[in-house]
């Protein structure tokens, strides 16, 4: 064997070794990326398996219909917040906004002759008028949020924190109207509860409520807005790089305002559905709804990096979160304790979101 051959062999060996070690590291990296980026899904799937073994009733038809109904109820608010997260912002006024619109809808649709009516002389208002009214109220709050964010470049966290408190004050004042004295609003008109909670169809003797259908329609509308309209494309452009979007002729101001107005309209619709769904509205209605919605969006891949997110991801996020909450309820977990778990889920989901960004950088 010539010296040159040995040298060559050594070099090849070195190259192979190098390649091997490199591919090994890459392989390891690929595996760790896969594990870390999907850690939330892995935990949720393991939790579902554990709960299903512990409590077989978790997988019964009534339980699954319950999970789907809860998903449908929480979906519109998440679809609204999703837009704010695509803009790298957030909206923490969402829950209180749902509370206000739910109270308005309930107060306008109490049955005639109910003893504790907030507006005793009011006849039952047509449903469409109430729906439009609560959408308008939500949109106005959204406009205020969007205007301050877009015009003064204030961080959405600060703006929506202040609107959250203002809206809560409005709810408390609204519930003091007439002789109501801050009491829970109930005794809703049958047309309203039937429109929202009425049976869409039954599976295995379990009724699926109508608001599941409304939620599907809203999801379809939001999908079209996000994917097929100029506004949707502008939203993603502003979210990924505001300056670049501005340079390429996108009206950044109106895009931001419209994202928040659309979100507000979604909260209005959520409030309308929620009013009849829980059938007794108080100042506590809607409390902390935004935290579930934000967690669901981040789990579903709507990233705080901005300009990233899919409607399908939000649906999956809301669905997975509701599965966990219903499962923990089957395990007899006290709702007070559930807040601790919810908080940690947000922490984990957001840290994974950040890790994904760092790994890609």
């Amino acid at each position, binding site marked *: 064997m010539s010296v040159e051959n040995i040298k060559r062999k050594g070099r090849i060996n070195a190259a192979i070794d190098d390649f091997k070690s490199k591919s090994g590291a890459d392989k390891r990296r690929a595996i760790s990326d896969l594990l870390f980026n999907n*850690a939330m899904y892995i935990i949720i799937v393991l939790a579902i398996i554990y709960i299903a073994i512990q409590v077989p009733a978790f997988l019964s038809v009534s339980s699954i219909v319950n999970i789907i109904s809860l998903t449908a109820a929480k979906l519109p608010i998440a679809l609204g917040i999703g837009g704010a997260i695509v803009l*790298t912002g957030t909206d923490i006024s969402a829950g209180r906004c749902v509370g206000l619109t739910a109270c308005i809808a309930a107060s306008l649709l109490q049955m005639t002759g109910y003893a504790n009516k907030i507006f005793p002389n009011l006849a039952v208002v047509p449903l469409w008028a109430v729906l439009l009214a609560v959408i308008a109220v939500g949109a106005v709050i959204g406009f205020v949020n969007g205007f301050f964010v877009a015009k003064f470049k204030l961080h959405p966290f600060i703006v929506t924190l202040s609107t959250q408190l203002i809206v809560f004050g409005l709810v408390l004042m609204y519930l003091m109207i007439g002789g109501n004295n801050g009491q829970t609003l109930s005794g809703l008109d049958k047309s309203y509860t039937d429109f929202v909670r009425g049976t869409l169809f039954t599976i295995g003797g379990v009724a699926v409520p109508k608001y599941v259908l409304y939620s599907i329609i809203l999801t379809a509308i939001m999908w079209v807005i996000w994917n097929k309209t100029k506004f949707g494309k502008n939203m993603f452009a502003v979210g990924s790089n505001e*300056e670049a979007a501005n340079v390429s002729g996108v009206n950044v101001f109106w895009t931001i305002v419209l994202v928040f107005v659309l979100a507000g309209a979604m909260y209005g619709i959520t409030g309308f559905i929620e009013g009849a769904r829980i059938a007794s509205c108080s100042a506590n209605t809607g409390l902390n709804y935004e935290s579930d919605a934000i967690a669901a969006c981040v789990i579903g891949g709507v990233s705080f990096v901005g300009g990233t997110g899919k409607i399908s991801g939000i649906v999956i996020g809301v669905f997975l979160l509701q599965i966990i909450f219903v499962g923990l309820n089957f395990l007899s*977990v006290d709702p*007070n304790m559930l807040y*601790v*778990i919810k908080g940690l889920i947000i922490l984990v989901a957001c840290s994974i979101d*950040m*890790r994904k*960004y760092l790994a890609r950088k």
Partner: protein
Amino acid sequence: MENGKNIAENKPRKTGGLYAKVNMSVKAANIMVTVFIALLIVATVFIVKHNGFTVKFETDGGSHIDSVKVMHSETLDIKETPVKEGYVFTGWYLDRDCTVSFDTEKDTVTDSITLYAGWKAVESQ
């Protein structure tokens, strides 16, 4: 942003959004994620071990009844009924106005709840 010319020429690049100023290695991020996941799992296991819904009783001036811990889809097993002078106990209700009654022998518990005692004034003889 040192080569702004390139950015202008290329497609709009993501600025990093909320994480734009985060300066952390992937390794450190891995540790952070692992710690949070461990926290979540430890907290969840602890909470599930200490499970049980609390059912509280409000007797509106009647005799006190201690709250009880109940598991999911169990019925309330309380034999004790509250007493109040001048009134007869009419049963437990889910709301303060006593419109939605709760049958402690048949109705199952699926959440932490407060039950309100229903009272009927005794007619004076």
